[in-house]
């Protein structure tokens, strides 16, 4: 069977599974629709949270960005896992004890104000929509490559499928669907990584393989990679960092705080039976997430080495008769001349995967020196040595460009793994993108129908009409996200990082102060959220355009790109969060303290005893 047929089969089977589960678990009452009746086991919930969490950004985009960034890519790894520590300790158990459905509901009740809850809805919608744009981009990339359609068509198909199971299944459908999706996506990520780790190092665990020597040699894989990339004029892999150390610090912090402030993740912790379970649920979620996150750096480094080895024979890997890419120990240790003429791959002999990706336009070759061979190096290098070598070899500039977002998808192809593995990766990528989009849509729909329509405009709305309002808001959100996904503000992971910044600067500080400061009042919380959201959006829109519409950026007006201490817009959420805290504390000091019963409520939220299952009544 050819690759295309196998891909259709595997992706089709995985979709049939998700939709089947969604129909089987079709939700009945309002409370089941949103919170699965509060009856989900911590391990099940952990797995579903992991699927919800690991989106197209984690699955498709992240390892490719790490491969590009090297050591600095660790900001994604630490940022997107470290937030769970904050979530487990600072928010999850208390929000579970509070016992309501949604984040705006908590903020509205704790700050005894419909205005506060409405502001929270605005923050939630801004963060979630930005996040979904990134997902839709990922869905488009995945479909276009594997089903052989254009990326626009890919997005339309994705919109229809997300809409179907989010609308008909509700949260319960999603919880079990997401368990299935987790299993598909983690298998899809681990199988090729294990294959490749075995090929390169003989160690089946990628986490250990990355720290091992290349098979048959004493040369460690990372040392070899450092040597190769440095010789070709790139930054040393294990130390290179994009931007300053301060930017890496703030970027990591933004992602961590954002993780703990994203409503679709927080909502997960409303659905465990007890406060005790809410604490351990975050731990289980992180276990399942870490399986992918500790594998990703291995995928990144190994894919990078494989890519260099494919286009440069002197690296020391070669294609075995079986079709796999295998290590030649003598060549690896010989460190032959990467700049020798015969080292560069002849374009006519390029492997099939390059031809396939060339069609998508995401991988490009341009024969600048007309020798029919592919020279892949950093032609903008600061290394005088690399420059001199390239010149002496008659290289006229880098000839190969590889889009970072294709690294994971192309990884099994680069390693020349069997077709079923490649098909599995396609199914995994789609599972990741669709599951997260569906979780976000749940958060959006509950914010609009529950917190806005029922909470503010029409408290007497019937259960049925509330559900209807939720479904309509999902449909509207899908259309907006799909539309903006056609014209996204950056790589999938970059767009998603912006969403984290928005959540970090607006929701996290308000929720945290609501629990940890008895005296924080509504004026402080509202002013803090608005200030945090405003400065963050201002900085982001300055770089990426107003509401991400191309051509409306105004970075020059604020002193050029990254003008605030060299901090990039993706890293700005941490600054926004600090502004939020500061403004809230100052405003709180000059306004009157919250009423007695609210302070008692905070005391009650802090202790586990007396927690009850979330139900429809409130």
């Amino acid at each position: 069977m050819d690759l295309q047929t196998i891909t259709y089969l595997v992706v089709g089977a995985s979709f049939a599974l998700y939709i089947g589960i969604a129909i089987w678990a079709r939700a009945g009452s309002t409370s089941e629709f949103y919170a699965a009746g509060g009856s989900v086991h911590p391990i099940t919930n952990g797995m579903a949270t992991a699927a919800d969490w690991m989106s197209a950004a984690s699955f498709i985009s992240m390892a490719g960005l790490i491969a590009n960034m090297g050591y600095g890519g660790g900001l994604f790894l630490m940022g997107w896992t470290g937030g769970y520590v904050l979530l487990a300790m600072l928010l999850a158990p208390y929000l579970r004890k509070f016992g309501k459905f949604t984040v705006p509901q908590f903020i509205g009740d704790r700050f005894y104000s419909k205005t506060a809850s409405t502001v929270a809805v605005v923050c939630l919608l801004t963060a979630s929509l930005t996040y979904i744009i990134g997902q839709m981009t990922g869905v488009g990339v995945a479909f276009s490559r594997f089903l052989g359609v254009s990326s626009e068509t890919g997005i339309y198909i994705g919109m229809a499928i997300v809409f179907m199971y989010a609308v008909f299944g509700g949260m319960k459908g999603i919880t079990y669907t997401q368990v299935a999706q987790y299993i598909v996506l983690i298998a899809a990520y681990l199988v090729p990584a294990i294959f490749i780790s075995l090929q390169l190092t003989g160690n089946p665990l990628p986490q250990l393989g990355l720290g091992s020597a290349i098979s048959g040699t004493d040369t460690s894989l990372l040392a070899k990679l450092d040597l190769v990339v440095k010789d070709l004029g790139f930054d040393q892999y294990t130390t290179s960092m994009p931007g300053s150390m301060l930017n890496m610090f703030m970027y990591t912090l933004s992602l961590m705080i954002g993780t703990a402030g994203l409503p679709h993740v927080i909502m997960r912790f409303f659905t465990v039976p007890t406060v005790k379970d809410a604490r351990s649920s975050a731990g289980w979620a992180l276990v399942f997430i870490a399986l992918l996150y500790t594998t990703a750096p291995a995928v990144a480094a190994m894919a990078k080495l494989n890519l260099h080895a494919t286009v440069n024979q002197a690296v020391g890997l070669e294609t075995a008769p079986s079709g796999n890419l295998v290590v030649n120990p003598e060549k690896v240790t010989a460190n032959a001349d990467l700049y020798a003429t015969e080292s560069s791959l002849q374009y006519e002999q390029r492997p099939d995967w390059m031809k396939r990706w060339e069609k998508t336009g995401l991988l490009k070759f341009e024969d600048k020196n007309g020798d029919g061979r592919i020279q892949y190096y950093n032609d903008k290098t600061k290394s005088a040595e690399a420059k001199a070598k390239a010149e002496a070899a008659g290289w006229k500039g880098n000839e190969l460009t590889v889009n970072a977002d294709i690294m994971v998808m192309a990884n099994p192809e680069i390693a020349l793994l069997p077709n079923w593995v490649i098909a599995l990766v396609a199914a995994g990528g789609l599972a990741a993108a669709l599951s997260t989009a569906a979780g976000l849509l749940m958060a959006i729909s509950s914010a609009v129908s529950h917190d806005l329509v029922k909470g503010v405009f029409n408290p007497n709305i019937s259960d049925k009409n509330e559900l209807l309002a939720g479904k309509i808001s999902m449909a509207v959100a899908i259309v907006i996200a799909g539309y903006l996904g056609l014209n996204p503000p950056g790589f999938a992971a970059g767009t998603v990082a912006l969403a984290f910044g928005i959540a970090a600067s607006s929701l996290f500080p308000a929720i945290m102060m609501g629990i940890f400061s008895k005296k924080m009042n509504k004026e402080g919380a509202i002013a803090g959220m608005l200030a945090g959201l405003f400065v963050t959006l201002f900085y982001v829109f300055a770089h990426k355009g107003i509401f991400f519409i191309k051509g409306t950026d105004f970075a020059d007006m604020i002193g050029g790109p990254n003008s605030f201490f060299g901090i990039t817009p993706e890293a700005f959420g941490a600054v926004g969060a600090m502004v939020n805290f500061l403004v809230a504390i100052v405003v709180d000091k000059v306004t009157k303290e919250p009423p007695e019963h609210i302070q008692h409520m905070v005391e009650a939220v802090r202790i586990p005893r007396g927690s009850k299952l979330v139900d429809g009544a409130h």
Partner: protein
Amino acid sequence: MENNSASGYWTATLGLLTKILIIWFVVSFGAGILFAPALNSISLGGYPLGFWFAHQGSIYIFIALIFYYAKKMGDIDRQFDVHEE
């Protein structure tokens, strides 16, 4: 529940949180970022140590921290008799 033990419970909780957040900060922002260049001179197998903390180590420690927290909080709950029935 008496007011006294309520504030005792909260103090114990905050003490635990502070302890864990210090470790959380030290492994990620400390070992993974601020001191990574210095730690890279030490190697752990084929890994430079600072690189390992940023790409592997901090994640393992995060998991351990959450389960340690969940266990310790359970102890504190029982000690102050506020655990769920």
